[in-house]
């Protein structure tokens, strides 16, 4: 006798208020017991139409708005925008600005990956890594506060320069921190990354094949987790990244197939170490200079269109800027990395378990502020 064991499909709305949706994301899960038959993400709960806002403020005033897209890595967000406008205006910045921007961007990447790793531990059920990561992130935020005056939304990168030079002596403090921090990553690995339960929960779950990843426009650590060696810092260097020595970690699939949650997570952990290397090199290359040397008195780019992308902690961030020659941007379209990776979520999570949905979502490391803009 044939028996249909598929059972009834139950709809479970995960979010918008849910501890592990990393913000206000709603997942409409069609569940059959613990198995998720379909997971439809609904976004837009944090939509504030950033792109419309910026059409009404001048070019310098856009920077605080870009900060608020990916609030976990605001430095990288504003850096991308600033570089876009500089490209359109043809502004060249001096070496000190370039090095400082790299230092800040990489520190911000470390801070952002720390959040990613910590919250991922929390998603898997271990709360301790979260606070250890935040403890080290606080130190980085201290540097940012000392330099720019803010801890989260810096408005530090200006078009043509920086808001402030760093305080004398900060370089040594940064190096000191990096010295302390690098072994601390191994501690985190021992606590979480190499834990057997953690590996069992993440490896072999949520596999994103390289072909899928490229077709879904997945970028950054998520793409590299699928084994595709692609980094904008290498392929289309900006700020002189071509002169820096660093590796591009990719998912190796030590535990199960390549492109699993564990690979994506581990790419971030390894990237943190690479960022430490870059920061060391950038600090060594600092030369004296005026950080506001090239800041234009009046920011009025010529009419035109420019596309620029940078490597942010969550993937490549692209800005398409259309200028009509006035004081305000005519159109600023943002290609947000989390948006594209989220579109792949439905396919990746099909057939997973409820606990895996959380695991996959955490490994994508999304920030809703950037998806919804």
């Amino acid at each position, binding site marked *: 006798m044939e028996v249909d064991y598929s059972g009834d499909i139950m709809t479970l709305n995960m979010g918008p208020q849910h501890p592990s949706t990393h913000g206000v994301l709603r997942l409409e899960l069609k569940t059959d017991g613990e198995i998720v038959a379909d997971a439809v993400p609904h976004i837009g709960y944090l939509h504030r139409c950033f792109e419309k806002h910026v059409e009404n403020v001048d070019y310098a005033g856009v920077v*605080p708005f870009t900060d608020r897209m990916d609030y976990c890595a605001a430095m990288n967000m504003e850096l991308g925008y600033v570089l876009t406008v500089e490209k359109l205006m043809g502004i060249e910045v001096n070496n000190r600005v370039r090095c400082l921007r790299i230092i800040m961007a990489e520190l911000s990447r470390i801070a952002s990956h720390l959040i990613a790793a910590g919250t991922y531990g929390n998603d898997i059920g271990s709360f301790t890594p979260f606070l250890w990561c935040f403890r080290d992130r606080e130190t980085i935020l201290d540097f940012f506060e000392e330099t720019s005056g803010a801890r989260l939304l810096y*408005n530090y990168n200006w078009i043509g320069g920086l*808001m402030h030079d760093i305080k004398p002596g900060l370089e040594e403090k940064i190096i000191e921190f990096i010295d302390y921090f690098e072994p601390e990553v191994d501690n985190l690995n021992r606590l979480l990354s190499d834990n*057997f339960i953690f590996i069992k929960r993440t490896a072999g779950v949520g596999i994103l094949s390289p072909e899928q990843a490229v077709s879904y426009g997945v970028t950054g650590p998520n793409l590299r987790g699928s084994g595709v060696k692609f980094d904008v810092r290498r392929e289309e260097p900006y700020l002189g990244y071509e002169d820096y020595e660093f590796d591009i970690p990719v998912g190796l699939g030590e535990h199960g197939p390549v492109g699993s949650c564990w690979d994506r997570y581990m790419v971030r952990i390894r990237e943190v170490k690479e960022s430490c290397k870059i920061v060391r090199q950038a600090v060594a290359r600092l030369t004296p200079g005026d950080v506001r040397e090239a800041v234009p008195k009046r920011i009025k780019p010529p009419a035109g269109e420019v596309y620029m992308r940078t490597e942010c902690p969550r993937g490549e961030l692209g800005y398409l800027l259309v200028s009509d020659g006035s004081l305000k941007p005519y159109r600023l379209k943002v290609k947000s990395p989390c948006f594209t990776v989220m579109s792949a979520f439905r396919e990746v999570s099909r057939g997973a378990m409820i606990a895996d949905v959380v695991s996959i979502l955490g490994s994508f490391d999304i920030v809703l502020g950037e998806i919804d803009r």
Partner: protein
Amino acid sequence: MLTYFRNIGQGIMTIVSSMAIAGRHLFTPSVTLQYPKEKWLLPERSRMRLMNKIEDCIGCGQCARSCPTECILVKTEKRGKEEAPVFASDGTAKKLRTYVFDIDMALCCYCGLCTFACPTQCLIMTGEYEYSVYDKDEHIYHFAAEKPLTVAGESRQNPPEG
């Protein structure tokens, strides 16, 4: 069968190592700051509440124009020719009488752009961060000290939106 036992062994080993590293942290000093009792020494560049030294303000409205969120409202009027000239502390003549200088800290996005736009450096961001209030309207800070002579409608206003 071999993987079965290896998995069990690996599971026990990594659990013990995780617990060892967590247990070691029981004896490391905490990083907590007991906030209301102990306070953090803020760096001098900290950007918190806006403050306007109105005696130095020349009422130019640059801050209001540079603000991305339009949280500053400046209303000024020309000083009469017969009035005695007033100067800011850096010697700039105050040709305008600022009779409204309101900052809505509930709208402020703490970007600090206005402080850089200010020609007399009278608008600064202070390190004051404990100013929560029960009513949102109490976040509007009034800095203007002078009263208008003309009718308010005739004076120069904040630039319109857009």
